[in-house]
């Protein structure tokens, strides 16, 4: 069972890689829309990749009201 920190680290690795942002510039409480410079459609793309990574299904609404990596990780962890 992954810890919340592990889930967050994996999300940050994946996001940095996918959107070509230096990994050391990302931290848990960042607003990922602003930090990655992405729109809501690209955020859905990120969600698809996170589904593949964690092997869970994440409905679009899991992004509702979520802007930082920590909250996103909490939503994912609850479904793992």
């Amino acid at each position, binding site marked *: 069972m992954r810890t919340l920190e592990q889930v967050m680290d994996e999300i940050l690795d994946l996001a940095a890689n996918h959107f070509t942002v230096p990994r050391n510039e990302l931290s848990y409480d960042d607003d990922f829309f602003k930090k990655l410079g992405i729109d809501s*459609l690209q955020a859905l793309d990120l969600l698809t990749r996170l589904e593949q990574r964690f092997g869970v299904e994440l409905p679009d*609404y899991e992004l509702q*009201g979520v802007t930082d990596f920590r909250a996103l990780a909490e939503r994912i962890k609850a479904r793992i």
Partner: protein
Amino acid sequence: MLDLRRYASLGSALRDALERWSDEICLVEADRDREPQRLTYRQFRERAFPLCRFMQERGFGDGDRAAVLMTNQSKWLISAYAILHRGGVIVPLDYKLSAVEQAQLLAHGRAKWLIVEYHLWRAIAQSGGIPGSALTHVLVTEAPANAELAGALPWEACQAKGEPGFVDRTRADAASIVYSSGTGGRPKGCVLTHDNYLEQCRSLTSLFPFRPGVRYLSILPTNHAIDFMVGFIGPFVCGATVVHLRTLRPEFIREAFSRHRITHMSLVPLVLKNLEKGLRTRFAALPAHRRALLRLLVGLNRRLTRRRPRLALSRLLLRDVHRAFGGELEALFVGGAFTEPSTLQFFYDLGIPVANGYGLTEAGTAVTLNDLNPFRSDTVGKTLPGTGVRILEPDAEGVGEIAVHGRTVMSHYLNDPELTAETIRDGWLLTGDLGRFDDSGHLQLFGRKKNMIVTEGGKNVYPEDIETAFESLPVKEFSVFAANYIWRVQLSTAEQLIIVLHPDSGGEVGEKLLEDLAARNRRLPDFKRVSGYVVWKEDFPRTASLKIKRQALAELMGRRLDRAEAVRPL
């Protein structure tokens, strides 16, 4: 379709539609590759009546307001039907707004009932509830068993037996209150009447008639005026099928076209452009000889469809392209923002007609629509039947403010007589948009009278709101503008935000300043970013209270600067 002239209210038209089309497929609920639900019009009624009855037994009726806050799904339409059956007023709320904003609009709209999805309700409850609301009943859909509902009732409990009483309304009564600007500033609740909707529906279906067998893919939020009309009222009165997809991810939308043999769909320019990008990438990956053949066929199709769309022919010529869209696509509707002509032309040349239009919630959705006879990518089409459009105080080129008159124009802004009086004068709705009619009666859009842009995703952005991101920038003064507010040109590309910089005396706009500017810009959401800057070396004109006179500054710059030279990319 039903003869809408016979009906006094939306509720009575929809009630007849459920009977008239009882064996036709009404709704398909899809979730990725699954299909959890398929309802005929009869089954829709069987689901709606217990809710109508439940609301009736708790005193809901006669002009009572009920808010609906859900993603696109069957319960949205079932709830809307129940509200209208009981003579109520629907307050559709945008599920994309933050919980705090949703709570503010709920309080402003004085809704007594709220029907809401569980995850949205949870977010509202967690963010401090709904201060100042008039709510007496909250129904929550999709709530997990044993979930804490903060005083609300689960949807499943809201069933009552027996035929529900129908409450009719007059044409002049309010049918809905739709908020046309979501975030910040004063809430603009457009009060739309039964007459507004019935007349708009009559007008749109005269150009694009739906029928049983039409399968409409609904992905724009149903709370938005376009989907409410084209993805609910229109299909229902014509016996068509509405397909809801519980995800907006492009890969599932693509699949849905073939899986559900979609015939029509509405979208915003941003999504249309994404589809275009995907197709162009696929075309580019074809072997050279197939690419050459495709070019040839597209050219041929363009020539043969110059006067009007010829679907059967296009499907034959460009079979593979059409197969990727399920093979039965008849038309895409695009609105909510300006669409680039090249994108419209790209689809039309493939034999996929895109009917673009111009409209605003205040005018009950659409004002003009491209009727495709012939297709004109450089305009937003002709005025809809029954609607009047006038260009106020046209300049030498015929460009002036667009004003709209007719039975689709809203009644008023809720609780805001001042704004209503400013916006509707002598029965004419002042849109704040600039336009001109060409010789063939097609409307061309120019910049906006207001310093505002509408993004490709259909969001209204006010440059004034963005300025806080640049506060304390080391310049003497700065201001953010919509470029088309300064230089009024026909819209032919996406709209652009720019920042005007007045450097400190003797100072220049150097690399360091630009880096600072770019870094602040990156922190803004993408649709709020400025894409260029202008250097202006004079003091900005200001009011006595030292506010920038934006219009005066814009006029000065427009007169003295050439856009192509003055705007430098950021």
